[in-house]
């Protein structure tokens, strides 16, 4: 391919990553909101179900997983939207570098900004929900491996609907069912390690899901972006 100034793809990848992180740093609301959303949703469960510590301990892992999943999905909306509106997404599509890496860079920065804080705070919320102490590590590690998968899968749905005016609900209808395998593995890991199963088994499955979605999901997102932006 003939490129005027031949920047290597790795440089383009890093500069996309840097640019997105810088934008997030300057618009702190986008960083704080998913995190606060996660916190608030989790706090609603003791109110709606019961403040009883035993009951909460039973549902804690599921509640945290669902809250993380919803926070991730709602924050996905900002993944391509601003770039689509100001035209920089088209520039990204026109760039000579493989779109796969650009989408991956955007996914990584998005997860660092909205996924990682949720994962980091999860042990605190797990404590508040009275999750058994020996499960903190399980929950933390499964969320660490699982939330990037949720982001990668969600970005396919976001890319498909980026051109739509209002798309809050359609995004949920498309992407939430796809998250089932991750949700199952994450919550089973917490339950089964309490019964004596080895954590490594579940981490291996989540790791495999993560690698498979790193390899495939950006391809689908890139194809979807080319369809949505013409």
């Amino acid at each position: 391919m003939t490129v005027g100034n031949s920047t290597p793809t790795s440089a383009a990848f890093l500069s996309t990553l840097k640019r997105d992180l810088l934008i997030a740093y300057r618009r702190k609301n986008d960083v704080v909101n998913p995190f606060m959303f996660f916190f608030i949703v989790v706090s609603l469960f003791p109110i709606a179900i019961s403040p009883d510590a035993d009951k909460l301990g039973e549902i804690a892992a599921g509640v945290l997983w669902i809250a993380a999943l919803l926070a991730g999905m709602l924050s996905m909306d900002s993944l391509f939207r601003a770039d689509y509106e100001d035209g920089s997404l088209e520039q990204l599509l026109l760039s000579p570098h493989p779109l796969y890496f650009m989408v991956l860079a955007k996914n990584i920065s998005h997860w660092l900004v909205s996924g990682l804080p949720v994962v980091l705070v999860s042990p605190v919320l797990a404590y508040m929900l009275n999750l058994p102490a020996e499960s903190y590590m399980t929950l933390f590690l499964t969320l660490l491996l699982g939330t990037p998968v949720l982001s990668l899968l969600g970005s396919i749905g976001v890319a498909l609907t980026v051109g739509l005016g209002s798309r809050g609900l359609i995004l949920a209808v498309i992407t939430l069912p796809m998250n089932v395998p991750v949700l199952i593995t994450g919550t089973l890991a917490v339950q089964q390690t309490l019964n004596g199963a080895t954590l490594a088994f579940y981490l291996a499955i989540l790791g495999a899901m993560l690698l498979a979605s790193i390899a495939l999901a950006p391809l689908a997102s890139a194809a979807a972006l080319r369809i949505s932006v013409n």
Partner: protein
Amino acid sequence: MWLWFSKLGSPKWFYELSGRWLPWLVAAMFAFLFVGVVWALLFVPQDYQQGLTNRIFYVHVPVASISLAFFPLMAIAGTITLVWKMKLADIVVKTAAPLGAWFTAFALASGSIWGIDTWGTWWIWDGRLTSLLFQFFLLIGVVSLRSALEDSDAAAKACALLSIVGCINVVVIKYSVDWWNTLHQPGTDFVLSSNKANGPDIWVPLVLMIGAVYLFFAVSMIMSTRNEILERERRSQWVEELVDNL
């Protein structure tokens, strides 16, 4: 081979060919359905445990098995849409999604009716049921994406892509959900045996009913595809001639 393939892409050619097939398919469907229903509901010996309830087996199994075919069908048609931009393939993706949702809903409903009598509950969060429920959600996702995107070319490609992603997803969901929780009996390897327990009395009507439901699937797919063809080609000359000759 390639001539045949490119002909298949022409909506007009498909419309004429399917118009010739349709009466035969409908006749065969009613024949299978009539013999199958009468045999299954009136003459099959009653199950010694489940009594009359067991007869819903002859409806539930064919419907549930065909409902699993929709995502592969849509993924194949979607791939053809993306690679060869064949008009007919997109029409198949479009008509299969709502039809698949209906078949899936009917499989869930008939299973539920069977479940209340044998398991004592309308619904359980069992692997099979849950994965079929999520297949229903994914199909609804394809339908709503189609209706949300106004530009028909972008909608065609987007739905094709979502069908492919969804097809992979349905498989992963199925295995993960089975691993999560399962009560449903495992799929039986279908053997045409002549022994007492599963003799021809039991399986011949099942084969007839499977034939009837598959034919119903084919007939409904073809009919909705023909409708969609007429709607999309309404400005073309052959459709106008067709309407004038009515």
